[in-house]
């Protein structure tokens, strides 16, 4: 494991409310990723970061924004949560070398009512 924590671990919220999920790492990895996991879809990339203040969109970025003001923290924000964003969200990190792999955090289960 790469010292990744996610908070909160569980959250229930209502449609239309803003939600921020936090990913924190202690390994000084350059790259950080946010995925969502849904039954029958595997993991899909939402956004990723390749350095402080450097982020880019993934496959399913609509409705999500991210920020990375420090190497160790990567925030995922749902500006106005919808029921379709009910999912399990995983953060991952990677050092950035050519032979490195991604290491995953414990996940956040988000329910939007």
């Amino acid at each position, binding site marked *: 494991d790469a010292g990744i924590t996610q908070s909160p671990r569980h959250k229930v919220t209502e449609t239309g409310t803003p939600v921020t999920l936090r990913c924190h790492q202690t390994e000084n990895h350059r*790259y950080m*990723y946010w995925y969502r996991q849904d039954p*029958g*879809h*595997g*993991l*899909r*990339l939402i956004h*990723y970061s*390749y350095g402080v203040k450097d982020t*880019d969109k*993934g496959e399913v970025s609509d409705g999500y924004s991210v920020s990375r003001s420090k190497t160790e923290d990567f925030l995922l924000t749902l500006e106005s949560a919808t029921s379709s964003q009910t999912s399990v969200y*995983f953060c*991952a990190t*990677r050092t*950035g070398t*050519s*032979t*490195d*792999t*991604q*290491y*995953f*955090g*414990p*996940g956040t289960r988000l329910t939007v009512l």
Partner: protein
Amino acid sequence: AQSVSQHNHHVILSEAASLELGCNYSYGGTVNLFWYVQYPGQHLQLLLKYFSGDPLVKGIKGFEAEFIKSKFSFNLRKPSVQWSDTAEYFCAVSPYGGSQGNLIFGKGTKLSVKP
């Protein structure tokens, strides 16, 4: 678009049976290949990976995978499964040198091992 296909959605085996999970990808260039495992209620853990060299890769817990370039496949195998192997298995591909190391995942295969 690049994609990863895992042929089996749910596999049910008895203990000591042999396992093979299929994975095929669509990408014409060089790729890095991965198998991850997710035990119930837990996060993804790396089982094994292939970057180059010997196409037969050995991972943790007795798993291995074979990269067959001509078939765009990276199948996962284990000669004798245990009840503790019950989990969901994900194949993932990363195009070499591109996309910031982003992974493209298959939809996963659930493995249930009966004691």
